[in-house]
Structure formats: C-alpha cells, structure tokens
C-alpha cells in the first residue's frame, strides 16, 4: 500500500502530459469549429489524397525500419561477442550522435548533400573517374529522406538489440554446439529466436517516430514529398483547423497502437522488450 506513493509523481505526470492531451485530441477530433459533435473530420480523412499520404508514410517508415534492422542486427551481434577489443568505444560511437540535437544534424545533412556539398561532389568525382558523366543529385528526393530517417533512428534499433544479444546466456549456445548444431543452426534456432524481444522493441522504437516524422521530409525532401506528419502540422499551423488535425492525429495513434499490439505478441514471450 505504502509503496504506491512512489509512483505518484509518475502518475501525476502521465495524467497531465499524456492522458489530458489525448483526451483533448479526442474531443477536438469529434467536434466541429463550433464545438458540436460530428464525424465529418474522419469522413474528410477518407479522401484518397490523404490516404495516399498515409500509405506513403507507412511505406517509408517500414522501409526505414527494415534498413535499420539489417544494419543494426549484424553490428549488435558483432559487438555482443565477448572478445572484441575497444568494445566500449564502438558502442559510444553509436550513441554520440544522439548527444547532438537531431534538427542540427539534419541541417548538417542539408549542406553535406547539396550539389556543391562534400558528399555529393566526392561521389560525382569518383563516378567521373569511372567514366560516368551524368551528375548525381543526392538531395531533395525520396532517397535523401530515407537516408535522414535511417541515420536518425538507427541508434534506437541498435541499443535494444545490443542489450538482448549481450545478455544472452552463453551456456545455451554452448549447449547447442555440444549437441552438434553448426554455426548457422545455432544462429537460426537459438540466437535469433532468443533475440526476438529486442528485435520487437527495436522495430517499435524505430517505426513509431519514423511514421510520424515531418521535419526530415521537409528539409531533405524539399517539402515535395509530404508525409503524414507534414499534413497534421499544416492543419494546426496554417489552416488552423484543429479538429481535422486532431482527427488525423487520432488515426495515426490508433495505427501505432495496433502496430504496438502486434509487436507485443513477439516481445512478451520472453518477458523482454520495452513495452
């Protein structure tokens, strides 16, 4: 009974900064400008133009999550091996970018990827060595947006994977080896299944911010490839239609809730994961 007191600050925090805003969003989404109940905001959302943007956002986020997983898993697996030299430094290198504001880092990409920028001019120089005269442009396309997303969210995939893999009981792996499993078998039958909770929480932690992103698409995509987050922002800051903006936010929240539910099925099995 007494121990519940310790949770009070957290509960108060949750009520004020999480629950109350969600209730407000819900109220706004179900009312019109005059405050009367309506479902029009959701009906307006069913327009193909908005659905298309939503699907594009989900597609981009899934792709971003997949790329993060493909990069982070081997890296985390490698780092989790006991006999790595300077392991601490390598892990630190993964985390250091997070010490800087994400907006600043995205602005930096804006300069690096421009036509006269460091990366683009280097790439073009290398290409011309191989006889390719066509100049490539790296900024203001889907690729640039995807790159910005992967760059920003990779640590969120890396950390849970590393935690799960490095905590894994070595004796289980040794047992598998003793029983005659080759390395591929050990990985597919033992290591990977045991790391699923980490995979699940990594996917959730990357997918959620990726699907709601809006600054990256604006800066690196040149605002030509609107994502769902951009549309919500426009409703609040330009149009001033908080009701429609809230309805869109709610659709997004439900979507995230569903995806979290799916992920939890994997994560819960071993009692791991973040959720």
């Amino acid at each position, binding site marked *: 009974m007494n121990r519940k007191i310790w949770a009070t600050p957290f509960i108060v925090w949750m009520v004020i900064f999480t629950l109350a805003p969600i209730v407000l969003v819900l109220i706004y989404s179900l009312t019109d400008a005059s405050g009367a109940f309506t479902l029009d905001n959701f009906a307006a959302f069913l327009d193909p*133009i908005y659905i298309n*943007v939503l699907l594009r956002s989900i597609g981009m986020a899934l792709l971003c999550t997949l790329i993060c997983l493909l990069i982070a898993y081997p890296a985390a697996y490698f780092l989790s091996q006991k006999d790595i030299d300077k392991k601490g430094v390598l892990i630190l290198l993964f985390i250091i970018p997070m010490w800087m504001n994400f907006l600043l880092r995205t602005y930096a990409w804006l300069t690096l990827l*421009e036509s006269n920028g460091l990366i683009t001019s280097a790439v073009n120089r290398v290409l011309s060595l191989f006889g390719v005269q066509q100049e490539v*442009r790296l900024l203001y396309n889907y690729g640039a947006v995807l790159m910005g997303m992967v760059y920003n969210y990779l640590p969120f995939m890396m950390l849970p994977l590393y935690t799960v893999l490095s905590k894994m009981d070595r004796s289980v792996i040794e047992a598998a080896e003793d029983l005659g499993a080759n390395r591929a078998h050990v990985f597919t039958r033992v290591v990977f299944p045991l790391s699923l909770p980490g995979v699940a929480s990594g996917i959730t932690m990357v997918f959620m911010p990726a699907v709601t992103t809006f600054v990256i698409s604006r800066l690196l995509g*040149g*605002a030509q490839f*609107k994502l769902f987050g951009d549309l919500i922002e426009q409703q609040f*800051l*330009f149009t001033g*239609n908080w009701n429609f903006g809230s309805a869109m936010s709610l659709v997004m929240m439900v979507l995230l809730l569903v995806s979290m539910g799916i992920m939890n099925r994997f994560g819960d099995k071993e009692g791991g994961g973040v959720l």
Partner: protein
Amino acid sequence: MKKLSLLLAALLLTLALTGCSSAKESITVYNWEDYICPEALDLFTEETGIEVKYVRFTTNEEMYIKLSRGGSSYDVAFPSDYMIERMIANDMLMELDHSALSNFTQNAQWLQDPDYDRGSRYSAPYMWGTVGILYNTKMVEGGSIDSWGAMWDTQYQRNVLMMDSVRDSLGVTLCYLGYDLNTRELSELEAARDKLVEQRESGVLLAYGVDEIKDKMANNEAAMGLVWSGDAITSIDINPDLAYCVPQEGSNIWVDGMVIPKTAKNYEGALKFINFMMRPDIAAMNSEYIGYSTPNQGALELLDDELVDDPTFNPSQDVIDRCTFFHDVADVIDMYDRIWVEVTAN
C-alpha cells in the same frame, strides 16, 4: 540551526529581490525571430526605465494562435498586413492613441493609410518589403530576369526554389497567370495549382524551402529562388553574382506592423515602445541590423546612400504600384489548404 537561518536569510533576500524587480514597469513584446537590433531594446529601457520582456515567433499563424487562445499577455505584437486585418476583424486589437505617437508622421505617405487598416487606427508600420525572384546572374540566360515565366522555363532543370508557404507560392503563381493574389475563385486557384504541378512535373522545381533558400542561393545551388526582399539583401551581400527582381506581372508587397493586443497589461508603455521604434535613429538602427526596408522617411536620410539607392532595399514607386498586399482569406482557408495539399502531396 545556523544553516537554517542562513537558508531563511537567502530566501528573504530572493523575495526582496523579486519584489524589487516586479515593482519596475515592464512591457512584453512579441516579435519575429531575429527581427530587431538588440541595442534598440537596451536604449529603450535606458531612456524610459521600462523593462522589455522579449518573446519571439516564427510565423504569423503561430503568433495568432498564441494570442487568440489566450493564456499569455503581450503588450506589443508584430503581425503582418493580412494578419492585422484578421485580428481587427476578430476584435483582438486596441485602437492606437495617435496623440501619443509623435513619430508616426515619419512614415511614408502610402503606409499611413494602408488598405488592411484604413487610417492606421490599429497598427503602425515597422518594416516592409516585396516578394520576388533572387537569381544568379551567371546561371540565367542573358544574365537577368523580369518575368515569373522564368520560374517555369524548362531550360532550368532542377534549378528553381519555391517557398514552402501556401500564400507566397500560390500568390506569385496567381500573379503570373494574371489573377488577383487574394482570389476567392476556386477555378483561378485550380489554374494556379495546375501551374505549380506543371513546375514540379517538368523537373524545373528543385525544392520548396523557407529559411534555407537564401543559403542555397548563396552557395550557387540553384539558378533562382522565390524570396522576400530582405533575404535577398542578405544573400547578395554574401554572393555578388546574385540579383533580385520584382517581376513585371506584379507581386506581393508586405508590411509588418506594430499592434497592441486587447490582452495587453501596459497600454501606455506599449504606446511609448511603438513611438520609440518609429524614431528615425532607432528605425535606421533596426533596418540596418536586420536588412529589411524601413517605412521611416527620417531613417532613410540617416542610412547609407548606397543602401537607400539599392532598388531591392528601397523599391521605386512603380514597383510598389504593381504590387498588392495580401488580404485575409480566413473564410476560404479550407480551399487554399486543399489546393496546397494537392500541389505537395502527390
């Protein structure tokens, strides 16, 4: 015990100090980001003894939402023309007592009676400027531009930067098509939409941007970009190959004014502040610092001839005549919103 009394003494001292500063007269000013010379604020406090709390915003809409939803009170705000119009319509502004604004007559004649606020009953002009094309003289054919048509010319593949701003990008497109940039006609907006989609699909457009346009232009990343005149001056300073024009088809002209919201707590102090900002030496100081054009005729006499003779900084009367103010389109904002989504969401 000793510690406790020390703590108590410290507490009392803090109370005394805060009590002291709250007794001093102060005003809260709500202005655009990076839009005033900090020295001007110090001078104001020095001369009047009124302390200035300075708060910043980045878009008119953001400022409007803050003011209309209440919660915080500001004594002076700096909205643009169309937003002043909307705030007057929504009864959010106090009338200015012109007897306390001795410097008001310093303003250019055409800005003493603007069409967004007839007779300047609610607002006094602070800065003004135009919207036009900033272009790179080495990257455009013939080295100069005088029409919006250049922004649709297919020889400039991936070389045109537009503003990620509904009113500005749609507005100049409407001008190009010969329509009113405050149109309420859906058919005209749809024509402008098709024109903007054409600009994307023909490969001319490089990106929509806001603050980054002036950097990209300075770095020779594009042949031309849609900018505000003040930003043009900043970029031309960095890169002398750049030039600015207000196309012959006409464009948008804008004014940022100073107003006193209904929620203001220190009306007298706010008036003093507005009058101070219109004093020629202060107006010149601000204009020089931020690079935007001042409506203050006395200030123009104090500024460098080189700057005053620069048509970007101080456009001729015929440029002013072919430009139009934005007016509030809040009643048809859904239409504008929809058109912009259709342009950028495909």
